[in-house]
């Protein structure tokens, strides 16, 4: 009876886990390309487009994620009568935030690549897109892998905010069982899932970092 209840709890929380995972995957897949684009715009374009992106970056970095989440879910409904489903609102808020946070990380990565690499590409005849795509981006990514790892883990932590707008994530699922059974076990199961996610991601990043270590710059000779 206890075992059956435990299995049911795990399955229910796992269902919430799948929602968390789905939001995480969509956020990462959408935010990273947008972040690269934003970083390039901020570095390359010092015109009005660059300034608009600068301002927007300041706005997003200066307000809490929960506020942004509420603004997209409740605010848009109140101001523009746009009623978004909670899942979609979560994806928009998370992608919007993390494209800015990760944009800053990528910007730092691009700036960390020596200027001489750009000059070498120029003299070899590569255009700006080819320079960024084939030479600068791969080097920048190696430099910022640990920070990207931190950020993607933070996305998982932040999914715990989603229960506030009714998304059935891990935390909400475990809270439902906790309220029903008045036991701490669902939180332990939730913690286990969070840890499992984070450790899998960290393991993947460690493997990638190890693979990249063979071509880490040796600045003495590069």
């Amino acid at each position, binding site marked *: 009876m206890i075992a059956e209840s435990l299995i049911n709890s795990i399955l229910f929380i796992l269902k919430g886990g799948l929602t968390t995972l789905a939001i995480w995957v969509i956020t990462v897949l959408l935010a990273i390309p947008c972040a690269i684009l934003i970083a390039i715009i901020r570095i390359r374009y010092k015109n009005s487009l660059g300034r608009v992106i600068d301002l927007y970056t300041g706005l997003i970095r200066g307000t809490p994620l929960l506020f942004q989440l509420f603004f997209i879910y409740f605010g848009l409904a109140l101001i523009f009568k746009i009623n978004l489903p909670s899942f979609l609102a979560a994806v928009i808020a998370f992608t919007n935030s993390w494209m800015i946070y990760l944009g800053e990380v990528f910007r730092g990565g691009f700036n960390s690549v020596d200027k001489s690499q750009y000059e*070498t590409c120029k003299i070899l005849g590569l255009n700006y897109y080819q320079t960024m795509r084939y030479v600068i981006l791969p080097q920048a990514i190696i430099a910022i892998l640990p920070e990207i790892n931190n950020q993607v883990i933070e996305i998982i932590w932040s999914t715990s905010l989603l229960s506030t707008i009714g998304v059935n994530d891990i935390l909400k699922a475990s809270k439902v069982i906790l309220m029903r059974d008045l036991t701490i076990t669902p939180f332990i199961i939730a913690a286990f899932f969070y840890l499992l996610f984070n450790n899998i991601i960290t393991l993947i990043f460690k493997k990638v970092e190890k693979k*990249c270590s063979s*071509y880490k*710059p040796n600045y003495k*000779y*590069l």
Partner: protein
Amino acid sequence: MKIIEVKKISKKFGKLSVLSDVSLTVEKNQIISIIGPSGSGKSTLLRTIVNFEDIDKGEIFIEGKNNKTKDAISKVGMVFQNPNLFPNKTVIDNLISAPILVKKMNKNMAKKLGEYYLKKVNLLNKENYYPSRLSGGEAQRVAIARALVMQPDILLLDEPTSSLDPELVNEVLITIKKLAKEITILIVSHEIKFVKEISDKIYFMDKGKIITSGKPESIFFEQKNQRLKKFLKTFSYKLN
């Protein structure tokens, strides 16, 4: 045929004049060297030729075309003080990236061409190494091969041995000497003995100006210019 023609160029960094009324000509198949003390504007001159630095006055032509045009720059290969290899690419990928991306060469052809130039710099056995596993001399030779693979009409060498340990300098100089028979070269170097051996003409620069120029024998043996004499004196142990 004039490959490079620098006409009375001047350049300032803020109030500091780094190039002042500099003129220089490089003819086809010549080896032209620029010598001078540090900070005399030698590297800046090369950087203005390839358009890395804007000039305030004067004109620069590469094969008769203004150096601001893409077509003109495509005739030039350049090797820097540091090899600047792409650390994320193997030696062969460093060589073939530009031919594939810029010249739209197919990969097999680019690889054959890359291997041909790697053989020229004696590094065919290192084609699958990442740059971090190369010595400084090897990395600089790869950089030379990478510049050559684009088949430029002129190779600019900006102190190609200055970042190397003394025992690695020679292998790079031997490579350049070998190439000197096949391509037009404009080199900035502190390797005075080497410059004396390979150059058709030498320019001596100081404080952003070309003080004097001439054939090696006139620079080294018939020179009356006091500044050049003083400069060469510091290298006398290397020349003997």
